[in-house]
């Protein structure tokens, strides 16, 4: 009896962490094939950790509030981009530029978050597909603002970021004078034996660490407790007097604001804004990374974020090279990593839905077992 329960425990552990395990295997196979040096790999991963972790952390709070994977984090990314475009037109550079952009992005993010939260409250039970469509819808509004209103309604001075026709923003906006200013604020180069010199973006990591602490702290607040309650059972929470709708909206607003900050950190590392495409894939990659870290639609932790960044981005770095090594075509690897991102999300969604149904069918089995036991007792 004891043995079987142990076995089922191991099995359920394997099932719940099947995605990370699968990724460890993929990475283990691809790393040697890719021929990348340990030094390069480590440097890439630390860079990407600094670049993406903040963005992915922004997904945690809506999951806590039971709203699933927030595909609407793209909204925050757009707010961050708009703030950065304006700041870069005002020629505010370096760290002050970033701080200003963050402050500036907050009102945009809050507005978009309120909109998104309101809509999601109208579409309870299908939050994910709705937030996904919202991201497209707001993308349209973003285009309207950036492509038509900037330069005509919203003053844009510099011709370097304006389209030659006089309004609208160019395809790329350079952030050269902000590039990696945060990452290099406290320079640190670690010499790891066997790996070589690894550059650590210390300040970015400190900010990420602070955000982690804030999230941990947030879970202990009344609001955090309410969100967990709402996430688990809306009706019970409502009966207890919690304002469910408001709580859900707040969770989305917080997520959007954090995503805005995350996008600014992301772009300062990249050193330029791809005005019309930076945000479009960001939601998908962040969600995929989180899921790879072992999170599910209704449960995610800070640990999932970091494990996810490491595994997902290792795959991301090595896949094209490994693909090229196997097939002689580098495009295969490119497509492979896109495929894997989508497949991971698909698998996570399918597992989430099937588990919801499995819980139901177990009750019947228990009843039958109870009756059989009763029969046996009677017989004996």
């Amino acid at each position, binding site marked *: 009896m004891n043995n079987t329960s142990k076995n089922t425990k191991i099995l359920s552990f394997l099932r719940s962490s099947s995605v990370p395990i699968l990724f460890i295997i993929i990475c283990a196979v691809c790393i040697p094939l890719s021929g990348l040096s340990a030094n390069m790999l480590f440097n890439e991963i630390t860079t990407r950790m600094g670049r993406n972790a903040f963005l992915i952390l922004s997904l945690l709070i809506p999951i806590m509030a039971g709203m699933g994977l927030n595909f609407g984090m793209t909204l925050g990314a757009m707010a961050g981009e708009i703030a950065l475009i304006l700041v870069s037109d005002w020629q505010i550079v370096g760290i002050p530029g970033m701080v200003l952009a963050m402050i500036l992005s907050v009102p945009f993010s809050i507005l978009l978050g309120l909109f998104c939260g309101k*809509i999601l409250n*109208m*579409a309870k*039970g*299908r939050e*994910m*597909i*709705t937030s*996904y*469509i*919202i991201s*497209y*819808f707001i*993308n*349209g*509004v973003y*285009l*309207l603002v950036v*492509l*038509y209103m900037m330069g005509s309604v919203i003053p844009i001075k510099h011709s370097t970021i304006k389209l030659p026709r006089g309004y609208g923003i160019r395809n790329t906006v350079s952030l050269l004078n902000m590039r990696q200013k945060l990452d290099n604020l406290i320079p640190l180069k670690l010499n790891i034996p066997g790996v070589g010199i690894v550059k650590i973006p210390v300040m970015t990591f400190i900010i990420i660490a602070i955000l982690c602490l804030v999230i941990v702290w947030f879970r202990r607040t009344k609001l955090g407790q309410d969100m967990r309650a709402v996430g688990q059972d809306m009706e019970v929470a409502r009966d207890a007097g919690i304002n469910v709708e408001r709580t859900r909206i707040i969770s989305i607003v917080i997520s959007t604001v954090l995503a805005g900050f995350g996008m600014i950190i992301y772009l300062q590392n990249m050193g330029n804004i791809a005005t019309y495409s930076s945000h479009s894939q960001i939601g998908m990659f962040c969600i995929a990374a989180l899921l790879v870290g072992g999170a599910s639609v209704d449960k995610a932790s800070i640990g999932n974020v970091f494990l996810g960044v490491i595994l997902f981005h290792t795959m991301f770095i090595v896949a094209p090279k490994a693909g090229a090594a196997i*097939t002689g*075509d580098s*495009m*295969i690897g490119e*497509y*492979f990593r*896109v*495929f894997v*991102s*989508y*497949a991971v*999300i*698909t698998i996570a*969604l*399918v597992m*989430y*839905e*099937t588990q*919801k*149904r499995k819980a139901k069918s177990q009750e019947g089995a228990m009843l039958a077992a109870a009756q059989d036991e009763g029969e046996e007792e009677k017989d004996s």
Partner: protein
Amino acid sequence: MQKEKSWFGKLVENYGLPRMIITLFLLLLLVLCPFVGADLPTQISNIIARFSWNGILVLAMVPMVHSGCGLNFGLPLGIISGLLGATLSIEFGFTGPLSFLAAIAIATPFALIFGTGYGWLLNRIKGGEMMIATYVGFSSVSLMCMMWLILPYHSPNMVWGLSGKGLRTTITLEGYYNQVLANFLKIKIGNFVIPTGSLLFFALLALCIWAFLHTKTGTAMTAVGSNPVFARAAGINVDRIRLLSVIMSTWLAAIGILVYEQGFGFIQLYMAPFYMALPAVSAILIGGATVNKATILNVIIGTILFQGIVTMTPTVMNNIIHTDMSEVIRIIASNGMILYALTRKTEGSK
């Protein structure tokens, strides 16, 4: 006055406010057309042509909506079956109109296989269909991106000239089935062109769906979508009906993309099928369908309205404000329409 208002209110209620706005917008565009110097017959021909390309893709939504599987965001899966049919037909050396028939014939088994797997999956995750359908579509498209490179295609018309392997991103259909339906019984009066064959083909498939919905199984499908518990209590195998609907949708999508290609003149591979689901979804919603109710009429109206907006806005807007805002308008309008449908309370579903 009072009476008139209630009449108007009723119309809005029946027709739906967003659809009303879109219809009025399209009418406005048509009225403005001659004033901005655009040629009305050409414009209308354009709308008809685009309708004939896209109609079947929109029609592919109908079976799944009927069986309660929601909007088929997994349309790309069916499109991939169609693309396999198209490329294999060329690879096997079929040319001219025959290549179109061959493409349909080859696409069909793929659609059946993919549709079965897809339907089986959707039956296991009832309630979360739409999100998973989206990602099934995405995953399959990105998987096929690899396949287009790896699969041993040889036809010089399709593979990259330099390396001699891997399919090109766009393949011209000149000499194959370009305009094969459109040219059948084509009517041309001045600038006004009607691709009769394409329209007839659409009509044929629409008729088949209409007829199917009048049969015993079709009735069962509607009932499953309307109230799955009722259907189960009436002895219907709900899962089997849903599976059938998914297969039908997938097959229609496969045929739809072939018809689209014959109008467009090219096969588009790789990431092209990626975002084909959203225009089809918003088209049928604009036509007045909801998440669990759709008719052939919704398909026709929706496709005309959607394609009308898509073709008319660039020309008209360009002429009025000298800016091509059509993209933005289309994105906002079509996604707004989907949002509107998703936030409607749907009783009876689930």
